[in-house]
């Protein structure tokens, strides 16, 4: 790719979120990620502003673009109507499309993320769903949630949910025709292609790292080197 900046400019989020940056730092001042990660969103926009492909490519390969929590607090404050969070979404999209995401530890998380959410959406119609919720990966949900998961159907019934039931209601079973429509949307709008892309790039990287795809995915999910957070 010769013109990364031009490629970014095609993204609607970039069109909305990138104008000109005066490096005032209002974004970083209130950025949750800037406070706990070694991270400065202002610099991202500043780098993009250079339109220098080498610098942008470095960004696409780095952990930096994956720290943002997309809370969009930055959008509120920018005096130039930029949205660094939006710019980052465009950068991430480009990083995924070009396969740069596998170069960084945080970028490699795309594999477990893609699997979790696309599977939940396509199989159940939900982004998050009890059937795919493993308490051991979510110990922060507490003993109360362990109890809830252990007695899922009874507990949900007590809450007035319509778990896996027909018709409307909480956690209802989403009809198959609706799920089929979601699948069709995925096919038409490039999500299916995106899944394949992420898997292919990840597989290649896993081989390079000498890991099985499962190990690669698991490592991406739970391993954090100490270079990300403040010491």
């Amino acid at each position, binding site marked *: 790719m010769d013109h990364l900046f031009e490629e970014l400019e095609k993204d609607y989020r970039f069109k909305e979120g990138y*104008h000109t940056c*005066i*490096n*005032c*730092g*209002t*974004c*970083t*001042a*209130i*950025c949750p990620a*800037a*406070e706990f990660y070694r991270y*400065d969103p*202002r*610099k991202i926009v500043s780098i993009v502003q250079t339109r220098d492909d080498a610098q942008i490519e470095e960004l696409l390969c780095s952990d930096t673009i994956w720290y943002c929590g997309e809370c969009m607090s930055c959008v*509120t*404050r*920018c*005096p*130039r*109507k930029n949205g660094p969070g939006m710019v980052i979404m465009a950068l991430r999209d480009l990083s995924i499309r070009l396969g740069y995401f596998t170069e960084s530890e945080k970028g490699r998380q795309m594999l477990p993320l893609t699997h979790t959410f696309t599977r939940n959406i396509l199989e159940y119609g939900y982004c998050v769903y009890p059937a795919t919720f493993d308490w051991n990966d979510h110990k922060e949900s507490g003993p109360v949630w362990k109890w809830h998961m252990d007695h899922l159907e009874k507990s949900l019934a007590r809450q007035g949910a319509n778990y896996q039931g027909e018709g409307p209601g909480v956690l209802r079973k989403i009809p198959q025709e609706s799920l089929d429509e979601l699948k069709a949307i995925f096919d038409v709008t490039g999500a299916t292609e995106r899944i394949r892309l992420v898997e292919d790039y990840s597989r290649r990287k896993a081989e390079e790292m000498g890991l099985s795809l499962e190990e690669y995915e698991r490592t991406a999910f739970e391993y954090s080197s100490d270079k990300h957070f403040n010491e």
Partner: protein
Amino acid sequence: MKENVVIIGGGVAGMEAARQLLFLGYNPIVVEQQDHLGGHVSQWNRLFPDMASAQDLVRHMGEEIVDANIFLETKVNFINRLREGYLVMLSNGVSVACRAILIASGFRLFDATRKEEYGYGVYDHVITNADLENWFNGNADSRIPAAPKSVGFVHCVGSRDLKAGNSQCSKVCCMTAVKQAIEMKEHFPDARIYCFYMDLRLFGKKYEDFYINAQQEHGVQFIRGRISEVGETLDGRLQVKAEDTLSGKPLRAQLDLLVLMAGMVCNPDAAELARMARLEVDSDGFLRSADNIAGIVGSNRPGIFYAGACTGTKTVPETLAEARSAALDIHRFIQGK
């Protein structure tokens, strides 16, 4: 019989133009909405760079135009085009036929409540540059603590801010902030003074000296980062957040007083005048000069002239220079040269 020239606005631009027109043998008629002359300058305490008294300046200028017709608390109701010149109808019932009108309607100070994140009007100790000048003038302000330990100045409040609708730089705020920071340090020698800036635009004569002086003699700390958010702590102090862009880290500070350097925005009354007299308005909301280099005091209508901040942000000396220039252009226009 001396020829009438209507001057809309009795700030320093209007006053200076009236003085020059009197000298050139005209009968200037100054129309001022407020009950006093001098506009914003009359509310100020001291003027940079020589720390001259603003009141003295206004008083002195007022003394020089006692022979002019001055209508205070008066507005312009209509401006009608005559075959030769204009008929200006005033809210006090007076109508004036004249060949030339000078618009010196000035600016408005940005309404700082619109930068909601700074909490002007919400938090107890947030004031504006104008409030501080008012306090310097000896008027009490309960928002200013008796012995503040830390005072912050926020540059570019409502200036250079697309979200606030003003992309322009207000020119004077950087210097005003430096001046006020020094003055605050003189009032409160033990206080720490911080200026939060994006760029320091200290372009005028002696301005940079003020900056060096503020750093060296007064220990004012300049922090390159726009304040993003202000909160109030339990003890009523202010917690501000900015990025210390020079170190690339988020920065917090607790302050006892925060001064917002509210910028200059176009006077909405100027838009009304523009409608009456079919004048062009620029993209920034200010009146559009005939030409921004050689014709700054000219308008798109014959016989209508501009002076001062009605066409954009100006310093006091620039305003005075424009007023003189406009007076001379009016003279030439009436003389048909």
